[in-house]
C-alpha cells in the first residue's frame, strides 16, 4: 500500500482521521531529563511502522508511553480516536494494544503455554494453536518453563504472548537485541505476516536495515525528537538514518 505521509496538510489531516494510533506533542520526562519532546506519530490500520534510532534516542520510552508504563508530561495519545493517556496499562492492553518489551521479559517460572495463556482473554486453546503455527519452534517446548528456552525462543514467546489477545496494534521493542542474525530474521521476518493479518505493527529497532526491509513507513528518533519520517524505501535510500546513528 502506498501512503503519502508528508506533503499536503489535507492529506495529513485525512491520515489522522483514519489513524489507529495518533500521537501529538508527546513529551516524557525522567527526573529533569526530557526523554521525548514534541513527538508526533500516526499509524494506520494494517500498517507496519519502523521506529529507528540509536540507544538512548527514546524508542523504548515511546513504546512505554504508548502502553502506559511511563506517564506523559504533555501531549495526547489517541487509540481508535479515543484518548487513552490517562488509562492504566492493563486497560490500554485490553483495548487492543499488544506490547512486547525490550529484553523479552517472559515470565520465567511459567511454562510456554502458560506464558501465552495469561495474555489471552478469548479462546485460549485456539489462540495458542495459532501462535504455535506462527512459531513452530515453541510448540515442541510448550510444557517447558520459559527460563529454559534459548534467547531466540524466548523472543518468539514474547512476540507470541503479545499477539494472544488479538491486538490491533503490536508494539515490538527491539526484538533483535542479543539474537544472532539468523534468529533476528526469523523473528523480524514474521512482521509482514502479522501486518498482513490486519495487525498494525510499531517496530522499534536499532537494526535499521532489517526494520526498513519489513515495514511500510519509518520514523527516526534522535535524542527524543523525531528527525525524519517517510516511506521506508525512501528512508533506506537516504542518509538520514545513518546520520542519526553514527553522526555525519
Amino acid at each position: 500500500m502506498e501512503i503519502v505521509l508528508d506533503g499536503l496538510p489535507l492529506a495529513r489531516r485525512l491520515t489522522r482521521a483514519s489513524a489507529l494510533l495518533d500521537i501529538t506533542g508527546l513529551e516524557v520526562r525522567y527526573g529533569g531529563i526530557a526523554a521525548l519532546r514534541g513527538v508526533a506519530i500516526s499509524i494506520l490500520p494494517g500498517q507496519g511502522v519502523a521506529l529507528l534510532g540509536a540507544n538512548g534516542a527514546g524508542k523504548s520510552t515511546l513504546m512505554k508511553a504508548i502502553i502506559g508504563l511511563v506517564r506523559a508530561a504533555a501531549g495526547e495519545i489517541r487509540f481508535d480516536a479515543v484518548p487513552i493517556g490517562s488509562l492504566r496499562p492493563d486497560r490500554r492492553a485490553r483495548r487492543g494494544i499488544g506490547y512486547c518489551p525490550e529484553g523479552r521479559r517472559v515470565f520465567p517460572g511459567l511454562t510456554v503455554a502458560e506464558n501465552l495463556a495469561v495474555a489471552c482473554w478469548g479462546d485460549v486453546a485456539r489462540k495458542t494453536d495459532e501462535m504455535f503455527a506462527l512459531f513452530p519452534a515453541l510448540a515442541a517446548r510448550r510444557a517447558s518453563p520459559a527460563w529454559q528456552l534459548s534467547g531466540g525462543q524466548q523472543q518468539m514467546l514474547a512476540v507470541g504472548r503479545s499477539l494472544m489477545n488479538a491486538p490491533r496494534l503490536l508494539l515490538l521493542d527491539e526484538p533483535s537485541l542479543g539474537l544472532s542474525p539468523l534468529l533476528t530474521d526469523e523473528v523480524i521476518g514474521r512482521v509482514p505476516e502479522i501486518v498482513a493479518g490486519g495487525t498494525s505493527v510499531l517496530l522499534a529497532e536499532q537494526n535499521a536495515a532489517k526494520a526498513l526491509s519489513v515495514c511500510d513507513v519509518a520514523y527516526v528518533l534522535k535524542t527524543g525528537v523525531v528527525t525524519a519520517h517517510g516511506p521506508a524505501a525512501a528512508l533506506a535510500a537516504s542518509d538520514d538514518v545513518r546520520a542519526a546513528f553514527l553522526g555525519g
Partner: protein
Amino acid sequence: MRRADAMLLLCVAAYGAYAFAAGSSYTLRVFSVAGIYALAAIGYQFIFGQAGALSLSQGVFMGVGAYASGILALRFGLGFDAALPFSVGVPVLLALAVAVPVLHLRTHYFALATLIISQMVLLVAVEWQGLTGGANGIGGIGGITILGMPIRAGWPLAATVWVCVALGAALSAWLMRGRAGHAYAVLREHPAVAGAIGLDGGRMRLAAFVLSAAFAGFAGSLYVHVIRVISPDVLGFPVMVTLLTIVMIGGRLGVAGAVAGAVLVIELPEWFRPLREYTLLVYGAILLLVVVAAPGGLVGALRLLLPDRAPPAPPALAASPALAELSGLAALSGASGLLLEIDGLARHFGGVRALGGVSLGLRAGEVLGLIGPNGSGKTTLVNCVTGLVAPDAGRVRFAGADITGLRADRVAHAGIARTFQTVALVDDMTVLDSVAIARPRTDFATARAQAMTLLDRLGVADIAQRRCGGLAYGLRRRVEIARALALQPRLLLLDEPAAGLNETEQADLSRRLRGLAADGAALLVIEHNMAFLAPLADRMACLDAGVLIAQGTPAEVQGDARVIEAYLGRPAAVSRPA
C-alpha cells in the same frame, strides 16, 4: 543545627523544665525512663538511620547491657560506673560477633538474622537460671552510684540520666558532623556510588552497628539501676518495637528526632491515663500512620515546614589552590606508556556473555570514546575496571599495578574515578558537600575549599550551597563529574555524560573534558551521541556483543563496515507478502 531540630529540642527542654518544676517523684521517674529510651534510640539511629539497615536487635543490646550491669552489681558489688566497661562492652562484642557474618546481607536477611539473635539471647537468659534468675529475674539491684556516691531518686536521678542523654546526643552529633554524616548519606542512598568515591561501605556499616550496640548497652545499664529489677522482659520484642516506634515517629536521622520521639512515646501513656490499657495498640496505630503519612518522622515534617534560612557562605574561591596543583595532574602529563591496560577481560551473567575477552589500552592525556549498540558490554567493562563487578577472566593493570578484582573503594583510591549512567547524587545534600565528600585524606574544611575550585572548573561554583534535589539535569551531571574529579583521579570513566544535555551544554561539557585531558588525565567516555563524542575523542573503540570490533580514529571507526553493520544491521532475508 537545622532550625527544625533546634525547635524540637527546645520543646523537649520546655517539657523537661516542667517535669522538674512539677517535681512529683513519679513524673521524674517517667521522664528518666524517657531519657534512657532516648539514649538507646540515638544509638539505633546509627544503624537504622545512618546506615539504613533494618536491625531488630537494638532492644536486645539494651537488655544485654542491663543484664551485665545488674548481674555485676549483685554478684560482685560493682557500681553503675565500674560496671560500664562490661555493660557497654558485652553488647558491643555481641554486635561484632553477629556483624561479621550477617552485616553484608540484604535487608530482609539482616532483619531476620538480628531477629533470630534476639530470640536466642532471650531464650538463653530464660534457661541460664544460675546466672540470670531465669524467667523470674532478679530483684534488689541498687540505684546509680557514681564514684561511690549514690544518686538519689527524684530530681538528681532524672538530672543524671538527662546529662547522659545530652552527652550521648553531643557525641552522636560530633561523630556524624561534616564528612561522616555525608558519607553515610551516600552509602544509604547510592551504595554503588559510595564505593566509587572511595568509601569502605562494609566498615561504615560495622561502625554504625557497633555504635548502636554501645549506646544501647549504656542505656540498658542506666535502666537496670533505675528500675532496680532485671527480668527477661527487657529482652523482649516490645522493647524493640518501642525503639522502632520512637525512631520512626521522631525521625531516623538527627538526635533531635530520637530525643523528641522518646519523650513522646514514653510519656504518651501518662498523658492519656484512661487509655493506658490500649498503649501498645495505640503505638501500633501511630506507627502505621507515620510509615504511611510521614516517613521522615517529626524531624522530617518539621524540616519541611521550617526550612533553613540562607545557608552559610561557601568558602571563598581565591583561598583554594589551583586544580593542577591540587590534583597533581600536571606532573603526569609528560608520563609516557600506557596508564590503563585491559587484557582479555571477560564476564558472563548467568549464561549470557557480557564481555568476551576485551583488550584495550589508554595513555595519560588521552580521550578514548567507547561506542557500541545496546547490551554490547560497555557498562560492564567500566564496572569490571572499577571493581563493581568481578571479571571471570583477564587482567586490569593501572599505572603499572595489577588492580584486577580490587574492591571498588580501593580502585577509587588508586586513582580511578567514574560517573554513572543515571546521575546518583543525594537530594538532600548541598552541591559543595556532595563534591567535598569524595576528597580523600583531608579535613572537611579543606576539602570544601578544594571542592569550590572543582565546582568552578565545571562552571557551577555559583550553586555550591544549593541542595542537589532541585537542580536541573545538566547541572547535576556537572556536579557528578566534579565529584569524580575530587578523587584526584588519573583516569576518569564517564558513562554517557552527554545524555539529557542540550547542545549548548554538550559543547560546554566537551570543552571542559578536553581541558582535563590537557592537564594529563586519561578519559574513557561511553557515549551514543556521535556529534558529541567524535570531536572530543582522540581515539574510538567499538564493542559489539562483548567483543571489540574496531579501534582507531573517530573517522575510521565511524566508517568501519563492521561498526556500521553492528549499528544498522543488514536487511532481513525475508520475502514480503504481496
